């Protein structure tokens, strides 16, 4: 052990062992952990797939074209998020704000689609979280995804407002935006899985029980 004088000057990061920022490391650890969260919800959904005794089934309620549109919106929001980040690192704050705002708007649009969908399922499909296993697992899984999106929208908007303060968001301090972007993309990839596994596989008629609907 030799004694090194690690010069710590203020306003600079203390050099970290890996050279990576603490917060970014934390964010990735969190995303790994969140994989388990959604993994468990998806596992519950799949274990109970086609095990509902009564009430509406995926084939009765899902409207693939509508959900495809909302999926598309969410995918595009991911692109606009990464654009916002790219412009920020290139020092174009104005473009950054525009792309960030459009990300938040697309996120909100997705949520509006989801709320419309939930309401439609409840009213026309007679499917609520209490109806059957499908209802409970579906609403809980997509509901928690929606909650993640909501949090993301709030986060993006707070960055947007913050960016109007002097020095609130600067190209050098892009990490705040980087973290929000990682979270946003993660929410997007969770939806990629949900869209395929829950929606497309849900309506696919080849599965036993899927086509035999006891609903209406």
């Amino acid at each position, binding site marked *: *052990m030799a004694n*090194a004088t690690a010069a710590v000057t203020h*306003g600079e990061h203390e050099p*970290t*062992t890996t050279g990576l920022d603490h917060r970014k490391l934390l964010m990735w*650890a969190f995303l790994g952990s969140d994989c388990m969260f959604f993994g468990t919800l998806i596992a519950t959904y799949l274990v109970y797939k086609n*095990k509902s005794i009564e009430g509406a089934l995926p084939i009765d309620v899902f409207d693939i074209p509508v959900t495809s549109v909302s999926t598309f919106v969410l995918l595009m929001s991911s692109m606009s998020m990464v654009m916002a980040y790219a412009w920020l690192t290139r020092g174009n704050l104005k473009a950054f704000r525009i792309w960030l705002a459009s990300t938040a708007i697309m996120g909100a649009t997705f949520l509006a689609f989801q709320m419309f969908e939930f309401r439609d399922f409840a009213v026309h499909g007679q499917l609520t979280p*209490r109806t059957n296993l499908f209802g409970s697992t579906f609403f*809980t899984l997509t509901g928690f995804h929606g909650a993640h999106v909501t949090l993301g929208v709030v986060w993006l908007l707070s960055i947007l407002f913050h960016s109007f303060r002097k020095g609130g968001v600067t190209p050098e*301090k892009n990490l705040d935006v980087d973290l929000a972007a990682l979270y946003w993309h993660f929410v997007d990839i969770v939806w990629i899985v949900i869209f395929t596994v829950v929606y497309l596989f849900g309506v696919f008629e080849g599965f036993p029980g899927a086509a035999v609907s006891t609903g209406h």
Partner: protein
Amino acid sequence: MTTIPLAIPRPVHPTGIWSWITTIDHKRIGILYGVTAFLMFFSGGIEALLIRIQLARPEQNLITPEIFNQLFTMHATTMIFLGVMPLSAAFFNFVVPLQIGARDVAFPRLNAFSYWTFLGGALILKMSWLTGSAPNGGWFGYSPLTGITYNPGHGIDVWILSLQVLGIASLAASFNFIVTILNMRAPGMGLMRMPLFTWMTLVTAILLVLAFPVITVALIELFFDRAFGMNFFNVAAGANAVLWQHLFWVFGHPEVYILILPAMGIVSDIIPVFSRKPLFGYGTVVLAGVIIAFMGWMVWSHHMFTVGLGPVANSVFAVTTMMIAVPTGIKVFNWMGTMWGGSLSFKTPMLFALGFVTMFVIGGISGVMHAIAPSDAQQQDTYFIVAHIHYVLFGGAIFAILAGVYYWFPKLTGRMYDEKQGQMHFWLMFIGQNITFFPMHFTGLNGMPRRIYSYYGGLGWDFWNLVSTLGALILAVGFLIFIYNMAKSWRKGEVAGSDPWDGRTLEWSIPSPPPEYNFVEIPHVEDRDDWWEEKQRRRERRAVPVVAGGSDADEGHDIHLPQPSYWPFFVSLGLFIGGMGLIYLMNVDADGIRTLNWAALTVTVAGLFMGVVSVYRWSFEPVNDPEPDGGHAAH
């Protein structure tokens, strides 16, 4: 960022209760964790004593069956979530930054938040004794017994919300330690130079961030079932009652390793010091720990050999469970290899460490017995299992934690505990442990089911139950000595000096108790047991006695530490209040009609609002005042 006005000014309390509430010093938080966890541990111990007294003789009626069920549920939940886990967390906090040569953890305020949230979760659980609705479904909470039909009232809701709040605390702490260990090691401390305790902390933290989301989801589902009438575990709606067990044990088995791996880390640090030899096969021990953690995900169904998974699944899980005995065995053998040819000193920490190894071997062997699925069918849910888990968790984890307490006590307080009382404590514990739990092997094989509040005489259980109860009383006496020793030595013990054990790792290179900034200069690490090697080198170079650290307090004035904060405490308070409200959110009457409890909803919303506002304040509070821009590194 300083332009944002703070509702509450920066705390400026150097001493007193507010200094503890606002502290973000990892050492102080470690002390808070340790003291709280020991209090909780003793409350769980009292619950255990009541259980043992009730079971001392056949057909006793000292405790009603309902209270008995609450007692064993609370005992297990307390010991696991409020005892062993936070005791490990106390060591993570106090020891890890010192061992890696850091001045604090990566996120000091998040660390404070973890502690206060843990305290909130603990209070939610423990306060249920006062409200009369303590949970009664077992720490495993099997559905449908924990469903609203078979368990009306709010006991299970207390359990759910308490575990959720504790889960948030554990997750926050684990993220923090993952980042701290990966990112804040002193220069030169590569991964394979880290002390074993730090290694096992890293592995435990990774296990934890992956395991806790599973139980979080399971508890959410159970809560939705109970509060809103959803169907996750509703058999009438086609649900599978076994799904809960799978989700619980997917979490629950890694949880077992979350409890034992830090203990193994502590022992792996203590045995070399008191043998004056490096750990035998360092790389193998690390690898074994990692393999145990990884394989911990593949064995969960050995808790469920009798639920009817079929012979294929049972065989698979039997074999994976047996395989996990190999890395566990390697650890034991390597500890023996460390002692072999060493120069063993039997101070209290070493005694407890050896107690751990010997007891853990017994628990490990009975563990392999349970891997034999067919014969496990005769042992599942009997006292044989109770014996097993207490050999690994009491004889194992708790012995190792006590070893750690005695080992790091001089570092923590700057004073030495009373060696004689320490040894007495050890022997009372060692004897008490074996008298309490070894007979449970017999009662178990003699067919005594666990979780029964009473039993009839003449079944061959009377004698050994009485013996167990007597053993429990011996343990209680041992702990009284421990409390006395700690309380007295903390104030009046002999001054210990910086390196009383001739230690090997970095924490012994700084004064005891460590100054607030730990290291005057961040050390450069060149070897695995760096401090030990450094001492040898200095001996060779010049025959001057080694002075640890070599600092005096003035030297630290240039070091800028993050400043205390109110906000972590208030976020936790918000979570606590919100959790308390959610417990009573829905009233379900005898016919299953649910009504919303508006008062509870108001409390919930108020608590969550408080949490959100505090999070917002927290995230815009600079870590270092008045440095503009100094602290955005630690949100």
